[in-house]
């Protein structure tokens, strides 16, 4: 069962804009934006929030909610206190509103259950901290954050496949599209990872997380190292390397 997502903001425009942004990365997920007061002002209206939660619950039966400042979350909690049926199918996920919504949408698109989607929102908070300059992964193991090497585009495709002692498969692929691993291609990769059901690291970060992929800041010409473990690792590594090497339809 797919999880649907409700986005509650003080501002109707913010909720709508965020649904548009997250929806671009997860086109099959039901995203219900709600926000503002009936007169168009800023705030939270219980009736509107309740209606949005019911719409989402009717669509899929399992709902994860993200809320922005103070009264948005309080209003969601009030709606759940007033309606036990709704409370049974709705989980309020604490986390950063924008990054959390994107992570939630991609996780739901990949078939995560409610717990998985809530965890994606929570983890988005950590990635957010990393994006602020605290935890940039040392992806290439050269002791410096970010890409290493000589800066020249390496060979594309999956020519160099290495099988590790633990059965994991490592290959490389070069980013060819001009904008690198930005939001849309990152979402394509993490959705493919979810679809393959494999455990995948791309330059050392968890490739099921669209936010961690984006935080790599990988630009055109960077050679990405793909490490896949678990059943069907070789096939999954090949699929992902081809996907990255294809330029995501942007070349």
């Amino acid at each position, binding site marked *: 069962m797919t999880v649907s997502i409700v986005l509650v903001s003080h501002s109707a425009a913010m909720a709508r804009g965020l649904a548009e942004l997250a929806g671009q990365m997860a086109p099959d997920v039901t995203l219900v934006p709600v926000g503002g*007061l009936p007169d168009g*002002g*800023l*705030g*939270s*209206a*219980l*009736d509107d929030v309740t209606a949005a939660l019911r719409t989402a619950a009717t669509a899929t039966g399992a709902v994860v909610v993200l809320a922005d*400042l*103070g*009264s948005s979350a*309080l*209003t969601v*909690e*009030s709606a759940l*206190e*007033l309606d036990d049926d709704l409370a049974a199918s709705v989980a309020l996920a604490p986390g950063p509103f924008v990054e959390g919504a994107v992570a939630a949408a991609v996780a739901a698109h990949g078939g995560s259950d409610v717990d998985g989607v809530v965890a994606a929102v929570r983890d988005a908070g950590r990635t957010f901290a990393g994006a602020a300059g605290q935890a940039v992964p040392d992806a290439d193991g050269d002791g410096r954050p970010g890409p290493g090497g000589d800066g020249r585009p390496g060979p594309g495709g999956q020519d160099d496949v290495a099988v590790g002692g633990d059965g994991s498969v490592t290959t490389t692929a070069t980013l060819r599209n001009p904008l690198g691993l930005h939001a849309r291609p990152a979402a394509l990769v993490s959705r493919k990872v979810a679809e393959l059901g494999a455990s995948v690291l791309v330059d050392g970060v968890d490739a099921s997380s669209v936010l961690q992929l984006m935080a790599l800041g990988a630009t055109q010409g960077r050679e990405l190292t793909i490490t896949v473990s678990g059943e069907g690792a070789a096939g999954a590594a090949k699929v992902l390397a081809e996907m990255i090497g294809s330029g995501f339809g942007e070349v």
Partner: protein
Amino acid sequence: MTLDADWAERWIRRTADAVVDRRDELTELDREIGDGDHGENLVRGFRAVVAKLDARRAEAEEPGASPRLVGDVLKLTATTLMSTVGGASGPLYGTAFLRAAKVTGHPEIDTRTIVAMLESALDGITARGKAEPGEKTMVDAWTPAVDAAERAAGEGDEADALRAAAAAADAGSTATIPLVATKGRASYLGERSAGHEDPGARSTALLLAAAVEALGEENA
């Protein structure tokens, strides 16, 4: 003396009058340390409640209408505030009235029930807002109000309990002035929030003062 639905209705109507009269003061307090909409939000919310009470009164005059309870008035207040206030005080006061309604859904409202009503309201606010005393929120008015009502209930009647609660809420609100906010919108200001009274604590004091005024001249 027992408190009935007419008292509860007078209480809510007087609260509506009070927030209209003090709208500018509440808005000014909130403008200093919050987003400046507390007065407007409460006026909008309580006006909506009064409109619902008016409509209900018209229905109640029809033959066969069921007798009303304090809990009925408080539940109507709760759901209307949640729907119309717009800011954080909507779900906070809404949950307070919702929990208060759950313990006042019977005709015998005695001193013990009044104390339970105030305790339930505070429990609801704490459950929703997760604030603790000393964080410069409405909890700093509600907590001493509940304590004072419990003490007064040992020797007095429900009017004594309400009067003690209102006086303690007023003092508790004033005591928020030197505090540094650590919950709610004012917490973004950090140290700069000291020196300002918390608007939610002040509106709590107005609400409980209205409950006393609603007792009627002979009891107040």
